[in-house]
């Protein structure tokens, strides 16, 4: 159905190579996938002093040596280091949901390396990636139905005017003065440090956001619902064939606005894994995910603010 691209190495993806030289060996694709996961851990697994010091020491050998990358005991060690802070002590310290996904992915790799036949490793990784994405969105949609303020648009009315990550978008789309939004940030900061719990303040700009808040809520429910259904359904269902389109639409409409780097990069990696074919070829979707994986740090640039200051 989709045009299939393949390559010999990451660099080869971006150069014109003879068609028959483009097929990836299963080992090469497995290593590429495992290295992508290791890169994420190297960048983001530094939640406390112990992890910041130890994780680079553990992860770098996996990035450098093939034998380490594919070693099941190496992944068992990573499982321990991720499961303890992210799954066992997750109600004691601040553990955002994407850190749980890190732990699920590492556990999945470990189980697959221990229990799979060598020729089934990639297929099992694809399966697990598909279901982790599907369940993650299924739970996210269920959570939104359990939140009345999400369904009536209040959530985005509040979040777009209270969370600084959305200020560029809010000032652009709802014509709210950035200084008024900055005042909201200061008021919330003061409220969090208050010594008087009866403090009250008015949220600037919220009056411009009611219909926009509702529209964003409905779009979010729709796109997350479609991802949940299309990723959880077996591949034989028609809707399942469009799953990458839904996921890409989500990535394109969400992350330029809500710059949640940790969630975006693990989602992109899982998207990449499940988008590869049984013949170990990369599809056009795989290329999209790979490009996003590489350029994702750029979402931290406040594009809307930069553009509004230029024009």
């Amino acid at each position, binding site marked *: 159905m989709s045009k299939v691209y393949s390559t010999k190495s990451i660099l080869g993806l971006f150069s014109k190579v003879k068609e028959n030289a483009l097929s990836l060996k299963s080992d090469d694709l497995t290593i590429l996938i495992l290295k992508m996961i290791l890169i994420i851990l190297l960048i983001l697994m530094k939640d406390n002093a112990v992890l910041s010091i130890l994780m680079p020491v553990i992860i770098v050998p996996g990035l450098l040596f093939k034998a380490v990358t594919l070693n099941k005991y190496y992944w068992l060690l990573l499982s321990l280091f991720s499961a303890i802070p992210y*799954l066992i002590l*997750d*109600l*004691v*310290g*601040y*553990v*955002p*949901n994407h850190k*749980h996904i890190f732990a*699920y992915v590492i*556990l*999945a790799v470990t*189980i*697959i390396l221990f*229990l*799979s036949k060598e020729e089934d490793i990639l297929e*099992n990784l694809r*399966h*697990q990636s598909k*279901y*982790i994405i599907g*369940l993650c*969105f299924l*739970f*996210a949609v*269920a*959570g*939104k139905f*359990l*939140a009345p*303020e*999400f369904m*009536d648009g*209040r*959530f985005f*009315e*509040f*979040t777009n005017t*209270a969370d600084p990550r959305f200020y560029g978008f809010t000032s652009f789309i709802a014509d709210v003065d950035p200084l008024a939004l900055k005042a909201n940030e200061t*008021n*919330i900061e003061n*409220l*969090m*440090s*208050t*010594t*008087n*719990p*009866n*403090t*009250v*303040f*008015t*949220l600037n700009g*919220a*009056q411009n956001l*009611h219909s926009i808040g509702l529209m964003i809520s409905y779009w*979010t429910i729709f796109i997350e619902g479609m991802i949940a259904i299309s990723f959880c359904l077996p591949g034989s269902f028609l809707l399942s064939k469009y799953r990458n389109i839904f996921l890409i639409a989500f990535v394109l409409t969400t992350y330029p606005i*809500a710059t949640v780097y940790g969630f975006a990069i693990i989602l992109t990696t899982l998207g990449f894994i499940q988008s590869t074919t049984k013949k170990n070829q990369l599809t056009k979707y795989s290329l999209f995910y790979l490009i996003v994986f590489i350029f994702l740090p750029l979402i931290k640039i406040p594009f809307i603010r930069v553009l509004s200051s230029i024009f």
Partner: protein
Amino acid sequence: MKTKKIVIRYFIPLVMLFFFVRNIVLVETHDLDSWMGGGMRMFGKIDKMLYRVSGFNVEYNNKGYFVNLRNIKELEDQYVESKILPSESRLQEILEEIKDYNWCYNESTDKITISVNEETCNHPIPSGNIKNIEVYKIQYNAESKEVTLKLINNVKSL
């Protein structure tokens, strides 16, 4: 062979389901922040730990003082813990830990702070003056556009 396939296929989905169900139960029964605990319920509720306020009340010289834990560096871990899951038992535990510190009334700022050493404190606060610990969540009124705090849990000193 079949068992291995079942483990590979269903172990992670079952773990994910466990964390989702645990999240719903703890949110309903122990005021867990719905964004936490691996329930994948982010970007749903306005109430989240980052917008929660946690502190304790002290009585001194016939006046009440609310000490916001965010302003006490020494209690950073307790501050985070109390906002993630403000259950009775956790708050009781944290309150006892708070009482173990030496608290002091600072006349120039009219605030209660931790005294590094007892000799530098002119107005020490007996632990009996620490009355209770409270955790609040943020509340947004869409009609008035006002943001206020609402009490989630309050545990009195034993």
